[in-house]
């Protein structure tokens, strides 16, 4: 057959063969040696892609140092919001084991909390009803030049209406009752709260005027009430104990308005 092929065809075939040879040589030089190891791709790319350093550290990392936040954040409704979502990430932390926060790309404490909080809490038609939402024009903001959400809402535990500052002040101000009152106070505290702040339907006692306290307790003692519980408790206390309790609760800091 080769003898019958016209010469120009034969030359073409030689040329093609030569080009094919060149292509194979080029391929073996240009292809990465790890290509085809696992498939039609460069196998070395996989460990390269897996080796990146994570940027987001996760809330556990922040709580390592900021453990005073753990108490309210971990039990509040915002436990689902990670620290870095509101407080920003710090690329520097990855490189700086001393946990230097100066490279933070966001301001650590938001300057405009209305803008920050409405990111999730602005009422939008597409948001599911289970998400607490506010309509800006209808929400009672504090009467300040730049109102902030944290004036009324604890950002780390939003169901607790006190701001972190108020909470701290109240914690400092609580006095321990005298030894003989301690037992009585602990019984009241079961419903009225350790700081007399009240709970759900149980009213707050902290800051109540002593005269009012005494009158209410006397009413209970005389059975003049619908609350069988309070009648029972009042009758267990002597008049002197009631006066002491009244004085104790009068001096406790008033909880913020509901």
């Amino acid at each position, binding site marked *: 057959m080769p003898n019958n092929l016209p010469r120009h065809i034969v030359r073409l075939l030689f040329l093609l063969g030569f080009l094919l040879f060149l292509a194979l040589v080029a391929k073996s030089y240009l292809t990465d040696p790890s290509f085809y190891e696992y498939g039609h791709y*460069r196998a070395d790319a996989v460990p390269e892609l897996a080796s990146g350093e994570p940027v987001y550290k996760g809330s556990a990392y922040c709580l390592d140092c900021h453990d005073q936040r753990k108490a309210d954040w971990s039990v509040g409704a915002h436990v689902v919001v990670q620290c870095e979502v509101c407080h920003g990430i710090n690329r520097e932390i990855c490189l700086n084991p001393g946990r230097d926060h100066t490279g933070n790309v966001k301001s650590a404490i938001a300057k405009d909390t209305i803008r920050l909080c409405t*990111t999730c809490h602005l009422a939008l038609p597409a948001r599911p009803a289970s998400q607490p939402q506010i309509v800006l024009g209808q929400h009672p903001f504090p009467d300040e030049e730049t109102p902030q959400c944290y004036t009324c809402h604890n950002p780390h535990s939003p169901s607790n209406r006190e701001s972190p500052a108020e909470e701290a002040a109240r914690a400092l101000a609580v006095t321990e009752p005298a030894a003989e009152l301690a037992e009585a106070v602990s019984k009241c505290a079961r419903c009225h709260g350790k700081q007399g702040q009240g709970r759900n339907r149980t009213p707050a006692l902290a800051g109540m005027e002593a005269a009012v306290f005494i009158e209410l307790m006397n009413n209970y003692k005389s059975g003049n009430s619908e609350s069988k519980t309070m009648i029972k408790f009042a009758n267990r206390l002597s008049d002197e104990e009631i006066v002491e309790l009244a004085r104790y609760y009068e001096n406790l800091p008033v909880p913020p308005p509901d």
Partner: protein
Amino acid sequence: MTNDKKKTERREFLCTTGKALAGLGVAASGGTLLAAEAKEDTAGLAAKAASFPTKDYDWTKHRWAYGIDATKCIGCLRCVEACKVENDVVGDANHFRTWVERYVYLEGEDHALVDSHADQQNIAASGSESEYRFDNRYKDEKVSKAFFMPKICNHCAHPACVQVCPVGATFRTEDGVVLIDHDYCIGCRYCVQACPYGARLFIEEEGVSDKCTWCYHRITKGLMPVCVEVCPTGTRVFGDLNDASSPVSEFIENNQVQVLKPESGNAPMCFYVGLDKDVS
């Protein structure tokens, strides 16, 4: 007379040698091609794949999948922002590895109005191209139904993007993650065109394609992808299908799930709860 004979002999010798070389060349190329084919066939086998080139992580032990419960999404876009920060994605409104769409049915309308945070109006509402929020354009309208729909690369089991890549720059790993080798990508964007979900993007400055990697650098270390980690409502779940107690296995078991565009044949590995007729 002798010269002619010599010339003929020389010519014949050259012709024969030339043909022999050409023949060898063809045979050699055929041989290497076949060998390469054979290598590709065996390459997928677990035996080879078990020797994953990074220590501490065995890719044959995992089968990653993703879940989205769109009924929970509040459109806060923390996932979008987190992804951009974690993965150093271009900070404008044209490059997203994951994004959220909003579907709004006004009263009396049969079809949804669709917008995403990359919409001009939403960019104006947020104030910049690198901050993301949805605006409140429907606050005075009568809306009968509305919801958010997060979207992400589906890391399909039979990805069209991998099939069309001419150079083998995009591929699917043994643990089910579709990745891009930026060193090999030539920037032809055939994959961007091929993806039925619009999940792939092109980075102009680098001249390569890019897409969600399910934070491969995190999941190989036992962490979650960042979008899953920051989502406050539990809309996004991720996990190992080989582990029955992983979030995604429980998600699939406890919900009636769907995928986007099942007819495309891509076999996506991102499972949705709350898809709607107008979502594509």
